């Protein structure tokens, strides 16, 4: 089985988001491998360790710094990595991104049995790319998976959490799976594996290498446009209601009715 794992380099979860004009201020940000992608890599590596998979290719689209996220995936146990990087990609929306990723899969032989994604990237938080890739390739997909059983060459059984229970899907391979928290506990790579990761192959493609025209990606190739960024309003102080129970209840009801108008 050949598995593609998609990895995105994202700002660390603790990043203090700041704006610079109409764009995000990206200075002084520590980038990490998107935590949900880590579940995907771990899951793939476990399949390889269980002798269900032969090759794991970690794929990313992003600036040069995404190499670091890919090296992390390699340290966890991916076999090789592919990075699509090109200045013209800047500003690509989810669909443009999905199209590029599809091209990468074609370039890499197109013979993948399983496409693993994190359920979402913690930066843009759009949740869209995996499903768009599935749609473009006309593959079955299971999103937000918390348990996965794969029978190489035939099917995948994916469990998703839904309100009040679990949904179990059987998918014919090849399929797209997006990984959720709870699927596994990603390992802390050992030093020999970190060292080995530095020597594993990492291929870089430009748009030209993939035969993509610059007009199909970036701002021009995107159907959505970011108009502006705005920080959420600063959180105001809490309100404390004190007094006898009757008074407190009356006060609270008044607050709910008149001030925030929820009842």
């Amino acid at each position, binding site marked *: 089985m050949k598995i593609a794992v998609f990895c995105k380099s994202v700002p*660390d979860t*603790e*990043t*203090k988001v700041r704006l610079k004009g109409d764009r995000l201020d990206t200075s002084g940000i520590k980038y990490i491998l998107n935590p949900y992608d880590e579940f995907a890599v771990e899951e793939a590596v476990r399949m390889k360790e269980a002798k269900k998979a032969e090759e794991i290719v970690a794929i990313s689209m992003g600036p040069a710094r995404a190499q670091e996220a890919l090296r992390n995936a390699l340290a966890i146990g991916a076999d090789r990595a592919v990075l699509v990087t090109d200045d013209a990609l800047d500003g690509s929306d989810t669909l443009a991104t999905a199209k590029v990723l599809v091209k990468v899969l074609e370039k890499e032989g197109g013979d993948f049995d399983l496409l693993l994604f994190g359920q979402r990237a913690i930066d843009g938080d759009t949740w869209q790319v995996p499903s768009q890739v599935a749609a473009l390739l006309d593959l079955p997909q299971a999103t937000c998976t918390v348990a996965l059983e794969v029978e190489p060459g035939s099917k995948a059984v994916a469990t998703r959490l839904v309100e009040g229970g679990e949904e179990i899907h059987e998918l014919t391979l090849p399929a797209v799976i997006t990984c959720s928290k709870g699927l596994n*506990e990603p*390992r*802390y790579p*050992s*030093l*020999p594996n970190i060292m080995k990761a530095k020597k594993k192959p990492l291929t870089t493609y430009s748009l030209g290498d993939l035969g993509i025209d610059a007009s199909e990606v970036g701002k021009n190739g995107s159907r959505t446009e970011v108009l502006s960024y705005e920080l959420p309003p600063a959180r105001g102080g809490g309100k404390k209601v004190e007094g006898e129970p009757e008074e407190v209840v009356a006060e609270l009801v008044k607050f709910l009715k008149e001030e925030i108008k929820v009842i």
Partner: protein
Amino acid sequence: MRMVLRLILAALALASFGLFAFRFKQLLDYLKIGVESPIPRTDDGNVRLKETAKYVLAQICSRKEPYISTGIMHTAIFWGFLLLFPTAVEAVLRIAFPEFSFAFLGRYLYGGLTLLQDIFALGVFVAICGAAVRRFIVKPKRVDNHWDAPVILGLIAGVVITFFAMNMAEIQLGEKAVRPISGILHALLGPHTTTAASSIYTGAWALHTAILLVFVPLLLYSKHMHIIAGVPNIYLQNKEGFKQHRMDFENAEFFGVNRIDQLSWKDLLDTYACTYCNRCTDQCPANNTGKPLEPGMLIQNLRDALLEDAPEVIKLKKEDKLPPPDEECETVKPLIDRVISRDAIWSCTTCGACLSICPVLNEHPQKIVEMRRYLTLMESDIAEELQITFRNLENNSNPWGVGFANRADWAEGLDIPLISDNPDAEYLLWVGCAGAYDDRYKKVMKDLVTILKAADVSFAILGVEEKCCGDSARRLGNEYLFEMMATEVAELLNSYNVKKIITACPHGYHTFKHEYSQYGWNGEVWHHSQFIAKLIREKKIRFNIALPHRTIYHDSCYLGRHNNIYDEPRYILRNLVPEEQLTEMDRNHERSFCCGAGGGRMWMEEKIGHRINVVRCQEALAKNPDKIVTACPFCLTMFEDGVKDAGKEEEVSVRDIAELVARAIEPPQPEA
């Protein structure tokens, strides 16, 4: 008859010394399978020699608190043995030269010797009886009765009894040496005829000599190896303080220790020097709270492993067939799970209680950290919570994982100069992760700033540029992470030409002081307790009130045992609190009991046994304090938890020493 005895003893002597020499060479060869010692072991020869002589001859080694009584027994036996040594030489030489005697040394020298011998031989006998009573009747928990203990006690008793028997006979035969105790024994017990004296002498001498000749090789085949290995082990002691060595990540392919030949030769010598006294285990906070760590057993199991593995290692090395340590080897087995369990390895708080009590100065926690390095770096076999800690350190350079951009939030509005704006500030105030991110310790940091400002100290902080010093990563064995952190921080310090650091964290203090020179930063490091004491001495700060509360101080391990800072915090307290209100826990100074958070344990769940902090806190609460004072962010957290656990948070407050100081100088007094 005498001739026959002499022949038998001559044969025994040959066998005895031959076996001794064979075993000595063998044990020496075994040491050679170890790697180089990462720290110097023979520098300052004269100092080492003097310290060793003092430590051994004055028997400081054996009489450390709280083992004074066994120490006195050991001192008596040790001195008795030194004094009886000439008699032993006499006895052995008399196999060849029946008339040999040290009497030629002259009346005074020989007379003095025989007098002391008589007194100390009695002392040895009493001590041996005491030791036997302790070992077989009292049976303290830490005493592990191997076969060798009773054998050796018996042999020593035999040596002393035959010594007196020889003397008693010789007195009857007209010998005039100064031996008052033998004289009394002779008067009481005889022998009173020359014939009897003559045969008793021959018998006693033969037995005395035979026992000695059995004893000689036995030294190297029992725990009494410490008699031979202890002294060099003390001479070769670590004089640089507790610290970990830097690894060679460029060239090494194997990290940490999991096979006997990965330890240094000095680590191996430690195992020979161990006397199985198990004082280390007796003092170990992990062991005392029901965890599986037994530092003594670790050393003893390592000796067994060495004796078992070394011949194989030597053989395979000779054939050039020894596989690299990460590959399986059929005859040389890994150490982890064999000499020590994983749980035990992770139980260590690196508090150094074992280090400071060990009579032969063995180095236990260093070995444990080496094994942690193996588990963390090679196997990545770490607790889940540590995975998070390591990630936090990697991504945000603090163990809590709060964003690194928030590191200076605590200082907002306090008007604290940044070093980037004040490159000429004399001191860098190293805030540390706790000071920057722990809500409780932020208060301490603010108080420390108040004190420094009141004393008009020229200082600045790094602000958001500060990073974690890496102590926890290093103690937890994540040396790769520490390497990156320490390299960055050392570069940062050098880029601002920082030469003096003040820090409130004993762990940061220790790491900067002892370990950052490995990464190219050298400078003065002050713990805030030292610095405040200095300010008081120099009259830079004055107090306007005395604090009336009953106060008890807890020694942080990294301040006390690892850095010998016991007096400064107490000096500060004496300036703040009336003498009669100051009290100590039963275990204080060098015998202080860890709070449970050292060695990176701060970031781990404590799942086995009782919680160390609860036990320590109970010890403090038993003295009915109003205030428990610490000088370490980890200790502060552990004690606050401990006090809450005891339901005493209303009555007993836990404070950092800086908080007490800041309350007493507030409002700052103008110079009179």
